[in-house]
């Protein structure tokens, strides 16, 4: 399967990073039985690296090719992305890359380029509590028939893009209402997957399932291409 790049606040979100790294380590790719290497970098380091890369090759217009050695790029921290990073990640997805936005990674709402990729804008978050995440009936196959996960988490409510193209595969039940909790969408030649639950000990099992879903979809896409 190869490598994925995790871009996050490596000081603040150490625990979430550790859990995600362990889940990836445990996950064996069904096709190749290879482990997946997770490369980690802070957004500030990445922005600097991209700027240097663009500066070294002024005749080239972008530095997004840096991303193409990765099967997927994962963001799960609330960060303030720089223009170099935004341009690079947008181009990476447009050209066929896979972007995975998790929990606080969905809160980069200052940049409309990223909002368009994720197809939604965070409107509010509720107080943490026991939350029920539901897998849609048509998607229960990849969870082994399990459809309900109860985890201690902070609920996210997002305003979904009316322009469409989004496949919601998990919902949150909150206050008697159902809200989109996980979805995937095509963006030009790439794929964007958004997962609203936070990465915690409580959600570890759920994340094992979700990461499996994401990786299967990437493998499926590779086979098609």
């Amino acid at each position: 399967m190869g490598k994925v790049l995790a871009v996050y606040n490596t000081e603040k979100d150490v625990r979430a990073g550790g859990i995600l790294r362990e889940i990836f380590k445990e996950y064996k790719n069904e096709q190749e039985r290879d482990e997946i290497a997770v490369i980690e970098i802070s957004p500030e380091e990445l922005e600097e690296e991209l700027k240097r890369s663009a500066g070294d090759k002024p005749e080239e217009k972008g530095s997004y090719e840096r991303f193409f050695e990765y099967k997927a790029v994962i963001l799960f921290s609330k960060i303030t992305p720089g223009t170099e990073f935004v341009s690079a990640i947008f181009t990476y997805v447009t050209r066929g890359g896979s972007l995975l936005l998790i929990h606080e990674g969905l809160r980069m709402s200052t940049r409309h380029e990223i909002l368009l990729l994720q197809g939604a804008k965070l409107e509010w978050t509720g107080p943490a509590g026991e939350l029920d995440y539901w897998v849609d009936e048509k998607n229960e196959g990849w969870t082994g028939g399990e459809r309900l996960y109860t985890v201690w988490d902070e609920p996210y409510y997002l305003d979904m893009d009316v322009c469409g193209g989004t496949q919601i595969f998990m919902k949150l039940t909150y206050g008697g209402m159902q809200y989109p909790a996980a979805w995937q969408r095509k963006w030009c030649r790439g794929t964007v997957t958004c997962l609203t639950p936070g990465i915690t000990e409580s959600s570890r099992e759920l994340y094992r399932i979700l990461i499996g879903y994401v990786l299967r979809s990437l493998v499926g896409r590779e086979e098609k291409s």
Partner: protein
Amino acid sequence: MKKALVITDFNRGFHNYREGVDEQLHEVFSGLLEIDQERQDIEGISLQDMLSEDCLILYCAPVWDLKADSSFMTDLMDYLVNGGRILLLHIMSFGGTAEGAGVFGGSFRMHPPYNRYRILPAKTNDSILQGVAPFEIEDELHLLHMSQLLDKKVLLYGTDVKRRKHAAGPVPYQDIYAREGGLLVPLSWYYTFGKGKVVYACPGHNAQSFQEQIYVRFLRNCMEWLLTGGQEGGLK
């Protein structure tokens, strides 16, 4: 002199670039940039073609049937976010895909008949509207399903010239365009996108639209904004 590539259509029975729009656009931007290429072979236009210009002008470009993963669409997105400059005139022809509608501001919904309309500049001190007073124009103004995630700044609004009051009836746009003291319809906006810049301007149904002097002033302001720095990096 800066250079622009116009992407358009020479054969269609309506919005035909060769029916005088070409001459008008050369005149509108004279002294600012030279339109050195005019092409309608959409799928033959490569990223390198785009990068060889300072600006792309899309006048009613026939891109509505293109898939989002087509070469032209992916090249255009790449061009824009990495520093490209795009002026989109009249038809919002990218609305056929979620990606195009999202990045350029929306998808076509409907338009009232060709008519005389009053155009009002937004109440802002932005220099792009310097010298742009309210004006009237004969045109076909388009109503869009707007992309709500795009952080765009509206520049022009349209309204019925006499602000007549029409009864809401079987023709819905009459109500939208002409309700007395009611809604103003956004007709032009601008925004930065990654390292790139975009201006969309709806007026431009035919060559006559580009003879209205205040609109010409507005378009030249827009082109000046597109061609000057303002963003980190950029193509050149």
